[in-house]
């Protein structure tokens, strides 16, 4: 059995090592050793599920996930609905239902996205819960619930329409007092579909010739709004999400294949494009919305 160590903190940057290890693994069963895991955000959770699913497909059996028996991570994962989502992905010891009860502080639990009905359910849930978090925690106007719901709708539809594979979405608010001195809301979506390069290849790869790859496919979708559909009404979702995230001074990044593309605000340090990463077969969208400061956001 191959052992993959999870870091103490699992987010969209630290999960790169996890993706790399699983990507490099063969067909043997994997033990995901999370006994030292102390903090995990929605990006970490959905990437953990995605890499677990990859390990399951390769070995033909459920990988084992070990978590510390003490500490808050296990109960937090329970509140975020991780163990329900992980039922078909990991062999793990879920906490008792009593310990995972009480999700009043959760913005959006990990929700599988496989049908359009799932997208409606996500929008319904967020409509009921997001108002207080967006206005009291982030200081956004009350009307921001609608564009926030639209962002979630569009990123979830990306899973169904373009990835053609299963996916998960989750969202939660955090106090980034050390990193940013502000509250943030993190939205994460990951899928195990064919990725942006696979989705666009038939329609657009020829025009890029030997430049075609994960990075150019991400640029085509993210910057130019290209899709595999000939319909000129398609491809607006990501463009409009970017516009709204910019308006809130947020960060948006998409990781697919061996590349990541991002709109990076001043408060974050990351390149707009990274290539040569370990292969992540599907796509992972990360959105971080910061608390409004003064009139700036």
């Amino acid at each position, binding site marked *: 059995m191959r052992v993959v160590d999870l870091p103490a903190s699992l987010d969209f940057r630290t999960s790169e090592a996890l993706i790399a290890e699983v990507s490099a693994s063969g067909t043997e069963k994997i033990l995901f050793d999370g006994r030292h895991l102390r903090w995990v955000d929605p990006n970490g959770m959905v990437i953990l599920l995605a890499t677990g699913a990859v390990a399951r497909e390769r070995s033909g059996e459920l990988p084992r996930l070990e978590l510390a028996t003490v500490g808050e991570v296990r109960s937090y994962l329970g509140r975020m609905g991780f163990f329900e989502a992980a039922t078909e992905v990991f062999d793990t010891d879920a906490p008792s239902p009593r310990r995972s009860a009480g999700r009043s502080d959760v913005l959006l639990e990990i929700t599988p996205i496989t049908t*359009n009905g799932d*997208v*409606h359910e996500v*929008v*319904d849930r967020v*409509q009921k819960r997001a108002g207080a978090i967006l206005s009291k925690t982030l200081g956004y106007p009350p*009307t921001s619930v*609608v*564009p926030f*719901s*639209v962002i979630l*709708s*569009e990123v979830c*539809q990306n899973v*169904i*329409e373009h990835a053609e594979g299963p996916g998960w979405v989750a969202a939660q608010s955090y106090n980034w007092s050390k990193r940013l001195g502000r509250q943030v809301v993190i939205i994460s979506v990951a899928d195990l579909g064919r990725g942006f390069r696979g989705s666009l290849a038939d329609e657009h790869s020829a025009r890029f010739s030997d430049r075609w790859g994960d990075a150019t496919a991400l640029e085509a979708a993210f910057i130019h709004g290209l899709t595999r559909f000939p319909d*000129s*009404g*398609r491809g*607006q*979702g990501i463009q*409009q999400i970017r516009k709204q995230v910019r308006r809130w001074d947020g960060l948006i990044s998409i990781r697919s294949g061996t590349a990541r593309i991002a709109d990076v605000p001043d408060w974050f340090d990351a390149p707009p494009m990274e290539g040569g990463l370990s292969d992540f077969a599907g796509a992972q969208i990360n959105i971080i919305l910061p608390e409004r400061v003064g009139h700036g956001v």
Partner: protein
Amino acid sequence: MGSELGIDPIAIDVGRLLQHSAASLYSHLVTRPTGRAVRLAIEAQLSATSRTSLSMIDLSEVAVIDFSCADEVVAKLLMRFLQEDRPGDALFVFRGLDVGHHEPIEAVLERQTLLMVTEGSDGQCGLLGTRSDEEQHAWSVLESRGRIDTTEVASVFPSEIHRHALDELVLRRVAFASPDAGGYHALSTLLRDAHA
């Protein structure tokens, strides 16, 4: 007047259609299949009349509309009835738009270079979408007058560019020119006449 001009008013409550169409139990206008189902339901209602229909599309019961649905329910609906092989003649006025609806709808209108008439909560009509300054001027004058007879056009619009813009508004179906009675009609006036 609407009836004399051969126009049938049709009221379409999108909130009700959403709950009674194939997308039953859904309360938000999100996802492309939902939008497509609602658009097809609207087209089915419009196909019931052989005359020109003046459709009041009411979005007031819709809390969330995303870009995919705005493309299906608004842009594709307008484009369908601008095509030469359209299933019938239809004019549209959209009402019940709140601040959250504006951005997705405006985005899809701009992408497809479309224009539509909206009715605000105060009953005043306006234009949403791409238009030239001349089209905006011609539409505002027509809207304020309600109707412009053929014989008045040259005096109301001394400039050829505005007369051309008025004809463009008819082609873009945000104004009506009666082939029988003649003259140009604001859609808001046709609506009021239809309900008088």
